[in-house]
């Protein structure tokens, strides 16, 4: 029963019902009109033939007198058929005819009348005691006799009955067809929806990799299923990302926390006097500063990933930021035995978050500094470049250091993916992740390219 109720609630079944009702109403109107027009036509034909007979009988009455008219009416009345004839004197006494019991007004006035009559007294004895319907014309002849000529219109009613029967048959057929079609379609719709429901139930119970099956019909359900599947892909991606974040937070914060705890513990155990304890406390402080830094980097990445409020976006001069960063790091590079060259196109503007763009550039330059490996006959070189190119703003930091092997280049840009080597290096190791997050926040991307030799990081952002 609930299945039926469910079926009834489907749009298909409801629409079918509405269409059935509409069809029946219009059929009734149409057939009614046809029947009405046809009956008028038949009536007109009957009236015309009645008039012709009346004319004929009037002529007979004029030319042949009472004897002739009595004879003619008697002969007509004896013929089988729908004809109704009556001839009487002015006292109301029937002289000839095939029907009795006319209403009084028919016998006393002239004109056209229609009325029910008792057919048993009529010509057709086989249908005794049947009610007939008559259309008659009544008039007084020159000879003073009353003549009534008419037709039994049972034929007309037969026609209406045929039309009505046809109508009933058609409605019945259409009803059966629509109900079957409606139910079948609705069941198919319900089945498709049931598969979607089943899939979402599976997903809700935890299996995020489940997808709604897509048929080859490419109908509206397939379009819906495809877009739902795309949404599920996105959600699964986000969940995956969240899991990675959690794993990384666990690794990035737990490891230094463990180190911190170990240091404090061993300092307590050793008890090696004031100087040793002081040293232990200092390393503890340094470790906790590192932790804070990692935590800040993670927070900043999370904020950039979530999309910073647009209020922090303003028109910024990227060239100036790059010049500031280059100038800030130039002495440090020199100290490390490297050169820092800046080729910065002037006046490159962008709607951006100034601090985040600055932080991203700082991270890239610091990476170049950090991974520089001094070698014989080689001078370390860092290049900082900013240029505008075909609606893009390109911020590049290149070096001639060890670089990143091609197979790892895509991976380091991915969210929270880091090379094992970089995890053990000093620093939070979240530098590139933050740069990539900043690039994504500005609707651009971070590309890691081969600087032949070395590494080139390109922040590619859409201008404007």
């Amino acid at each position: 029963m609930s299945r039926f109720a469910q079926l009834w609630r489907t749009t298909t079944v409801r629409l079918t019902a509405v269409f059935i009702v509409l069809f029946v109403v219009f059929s009734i109107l149409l057939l009614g009109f046809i029947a009405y027009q046809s009956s008028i036509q038949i009536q007109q034909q009957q009236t015309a033939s009645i008039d012709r007979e009346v004319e004929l009988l009037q002529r007979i009455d004029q030319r042949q007198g009472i004897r002739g008219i009595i004879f003619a009416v008697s002969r007509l009345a004896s013929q089988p058929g729908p004809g109704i004839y009556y001839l009487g004197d002015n006292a109301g006494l029937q002289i000839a005819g095939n029907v009795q019991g006319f209403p009084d007004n028919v016998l006393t006035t002239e004109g056209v009348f229609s009325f029910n009559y008792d057919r048993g007294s009529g010509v057709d004895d086989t249908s005794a005691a049947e009610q007939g319907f008559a259309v008659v014309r009544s008039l007084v002849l020159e000879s003073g006799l009353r003549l009534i000529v008419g037709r039994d219109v049972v034929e007309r009613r037969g026609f209406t009955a045929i039309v009505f029967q046809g109508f009933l048959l058609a409605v019945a057929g259409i009803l059966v067809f629509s109900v079957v079609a409606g139910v079948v379609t609705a069941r198919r719709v319900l089945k498709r929806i049931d598969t979607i429901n089943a899939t979402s139930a599976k997903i809700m119970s935890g299996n995020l990799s489940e997808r709604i099956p897509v048929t080859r019909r490419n109908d509206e359900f397939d379009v819906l299923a495809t877009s739902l599947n795309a949404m599920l892909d996105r959600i699964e991606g986000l969940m995956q990302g969240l899991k990675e974040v959690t794993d990384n937070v666990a690794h990035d914060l737990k490891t230094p926390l463990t180190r911190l705890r170990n240091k404090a513990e061993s300092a307590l155990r050793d008890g090696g006097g004031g100087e040793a304890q002081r040293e232990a406390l200092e390393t503890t402080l340094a470790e906790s500063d590192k932790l804070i830094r990692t935590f800040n980097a993670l927070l900043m990445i999370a904020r950039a990933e979530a999309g910073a409020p647009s209020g922090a976006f303003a028109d910024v001069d990227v060239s100036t930021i790059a010049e500031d960063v280059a100038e800030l790091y130039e002495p440090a590079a020199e100290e490390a035995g490297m050169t820092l060259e800046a080729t910065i196109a002037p006046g490159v503007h962008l709607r951006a978050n100034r601090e985040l763009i600055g932080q991203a550039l700082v991270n890239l330059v610091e990476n170049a500094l950090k991974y520089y490996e001094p070698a014989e006959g080689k001078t370390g070189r860092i290049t900082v470049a900013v240029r505008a190119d075909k609606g893009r703003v390109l911020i590049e930091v290149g070096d001639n250091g060890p670089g990143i092997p091609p197979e790892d280049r895509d991976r380091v840009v991915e969210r929270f993916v880091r090379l094992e080597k970089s995890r053990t290096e000093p620093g939070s190791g979240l530098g590139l992740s933050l740069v990539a997050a900043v690039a994504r926040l500005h609707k651009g991307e971070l590309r890691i390219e081969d600087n032949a030799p070395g590494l080139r990081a390109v922040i590619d952002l859409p201008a404007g």
Partner: protein
Amino acid sequence: MKILLIEDDREAASYLIQALDEAGHVTHHASDGETGYAMASSMDYDVLIVDRMLPRRDGLSIVESLRAEANKTPVLILSALGEVDDRVTGLRAGGDDYLAKPYAFTELLARIEVLARRSSPTEAATSYAVGELTLDRLSRKVEREGEAILLQPREFRLLEYLMKNAGKVVTRTMLLENVWDYHFDPQTNVIDVHMSRLRGKIDKGHASPLLHTIRGAGYMIRE
């Protein structure tokens, strides 16, 4: 220096009060927003240290109300929210400086000492002098013992900031914020390299150095 600390975390507050006392400052403490506001508007302090998230009344609204009453006491806002946007809203509300938790006490101390100085009359000076070192802000000339020292524009601004706060500790992040106007977090010793270059220019060849490194805190210029 007379300081008002408005901070609801008792442990953090008592640690700060003790540390400030050791540094020679008198600190009053309010543990909720309403009390803090009442104390700040009724008494005269050199510096206010206001936590952003407080019971009964938040820190930013305290600062806004004080500024609306033309109270110009320097305010350092403390907050667990360390993002750039939060810093901007904090400064816009009328705060003079913003420090994200967790912070090093040396950083806090350096900042409030510089802040308190701000309300003193030397603010508008056109030239600074520390010993025989002079800096003229208008002609942008730096001399030591009458000898001109040529500085790059950034070095000039570094020295200007140090001399304006002569005798006070200036931390690396303060230098980055005030000389470069960035709030990011450099992991290498970028500031130290700039400072050693500056030191080379002003202290080299002189018996008594003026630019001092304060271990674990930052730098200071003094005789």
